[in-house]
């Protein structure tokens, strides 16, 4: 006589009660700080998450012990490599600061409002849905860390997904961008075409709603458009892997994601975004002519006489001091020859930053000599290129 025959009535009672409890748990939603969550999901996730967290922390501890005691032999060479990398990055940063400053000034001129990533929370991936049909991640951060529904989740490489549910103080659920139910507003970086990035049941990512008569090349970068009101604009999504004519007049565009969504261990949750005017404090008053002049090749202020004195004159200093940047920077800091107007336009687009560089150096020198606040002064335009 087996268990069910011996305890038939008890089993039937238990089954009926269990079925009702399950039905109840499925229907009932518990109000959490981040909205209603089904009780059955809350219980299941809170039961499994501590074990997953324990496994993660055990693995991390082992890895830390390994790194701490056995990998030390590589520290010296790695230190040297990192120092060299830091120097390289500082140089890169200087160049990018110049680009950013110029971009902010142009944005201000155009009245742009930017979406700034104000604060992020680093979180560890502690689990997945365990199925191929539901592309989810579980994070070890929740309501107590300020995580809320619909917050974007990223890594330094690009977009990962968004917060779907917050299960409590220390657990939240992320919907990956390769899930069929996800959708991210996207812009092709070169052609500026806009579409929606969606996942497929097989875990691929596609760009949708690009008309068939448009030209999209493989390798073209894809960034967030900001149109979905979830992700700030300009975050990398991936690159076009393949584009072909699809159904319903739209292109069928396969996307290779910037982030390897199958190998995520740590992510960043963007907890705060702010829309604000570009920060141009310290850049001084700006006029349209200033911006335009910076984009035009300037004629350096040459001393009237005595060529040997050029090397020591203040105006010639930028030429003799090689800037820590790319060859294009060096090229633009040498005196430019007068160019034709049509040629000016092309060079403006190709190398805008060094032109601003020269103008700012020039204005800084003028400001310090006149003991007045720093004010961008336009470089003298070349003949035939003066703005109207």
């Amino acid at each position, binding site marked *: 006589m087996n268990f069910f025959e011996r305890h038939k009535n008890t089993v039937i009672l238990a089954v009926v009660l269990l079925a009702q409890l399950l039905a109840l748990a499925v229907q009932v939603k518990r109000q959490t700080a981040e909205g209603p969550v089904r009780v*059955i999901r809350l219980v299941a996730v809170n039961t499994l998450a501590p074990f997953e967290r324990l496994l993660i922390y055990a693995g991390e501890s082992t890895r830390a012990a390994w790194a701490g005691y056995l990998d030390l032999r590589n520290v010296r060479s790695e230190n040297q490599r990192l120092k060299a990398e830091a120097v390289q990055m500082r140089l890169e940063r200087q160049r990018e600061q110049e680009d950013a400053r110029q971009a902010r000034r142009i944005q201000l001129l155009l009245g742009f409002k930017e979406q700034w990533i104000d604060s992020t929370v680093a979180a560890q991936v502690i*689990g997945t*849905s*365990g*199925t191929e049909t539901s592309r989810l991640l579980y994070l070890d951060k929740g309501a107590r860390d300020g995580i809320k529904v619909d917050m974007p989740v990223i890594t330094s490489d690009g977009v990962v997904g968004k917060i779907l549910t917050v299960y409590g103080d220390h657990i939240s659920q992320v919907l990956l961008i390769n899930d069929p139910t996800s959708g991210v507003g996207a812009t092709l970086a070169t052609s500026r075409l806009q579409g929606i990035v969606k996942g497929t049941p097989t875990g691929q990512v596609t760009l949708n709603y690009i008309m068939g008569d448009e030209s999209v090349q493989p390798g073209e970068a894809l960034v967030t458009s900001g149109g979905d009101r979830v992700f700030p604009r300009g975050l990398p999504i991936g690159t076009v892997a393949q584009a072909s004519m699809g159904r319903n007049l739209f292109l069928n565009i396969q996307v290779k994601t910037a982030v390897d969504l*199958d190998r995520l261990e740590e992510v960043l949750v963007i907890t705060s975004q702010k829309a604000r005017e570009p920060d141009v404090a310290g850049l001084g008053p700006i006029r349209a002519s200033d911006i335009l002049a910076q984009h035009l090749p300037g004629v350096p202020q040459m001393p009237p006489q005595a060529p040997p004195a050029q090397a020591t004159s203040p105006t010639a200093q930028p030429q003799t001091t090689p800037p820590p940047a790319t060859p294009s920077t060096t090229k633009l800091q040498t005196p430019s020859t007068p160019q034709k107007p049509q040629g000016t336009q092309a060079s403006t687009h190709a190398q805008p930053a060094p032109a601003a560089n020269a103008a700012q150096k020039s204005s800084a020198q003028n400001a310090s000599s006149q003991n007045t606040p720093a004010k961008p002064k336009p470089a003298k335009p070349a003949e035939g290129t003066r703005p109207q």
Partner: protein
Amino acid sequence: MRAMDLSYTSREQVEVYRFSWPISIGLPFLLVGLQAFLPVRMPFFRIFDFGLLLTIFFAVSRRSQVSGMLTGAAIGLLQDCLTHTPFGVFGIAKTLVGYGASSIGIRIDVENPGSRFLLTFFFYAVHLAVFVAIERALMGQQVHFNLGHEAGAAVANSVMAVFLFALLNRFKIRD
């Protein structure tokens, strides 16, 4: 001759097993939890469906249709909890697998590796078919699946089943 070895000649040959309560409850949580955790470090583990393997194992060991059905439903609903799809998708699929596996377990010998491999392969296909049917018929979703990938996953799960079932045999208690 081989087919004769796989089938029983009478009901007396059928051995029925039971499991302790900690194993019956703890093992599904452990394996479904592992299935959720392992792909974080080893993405290829995503192709394994430990819930399905456990449903088949419990069903063919207990050889009770009611028990197999309820076990499948419980494990399926547990998996549903970890997804963002409506409850019941995996629950219904695994209920049917539990019922089918226990029905087959009564009729054929499921103790040798070959029959376990074939049984798992067959029920992986049944599970997939039920899943696609639910998604299409009940939820109105267009489900696309890669036949090659699914065939590979079926083989991988069947191989895993051979080893996992051998391991789980230690927890069997003869009724």
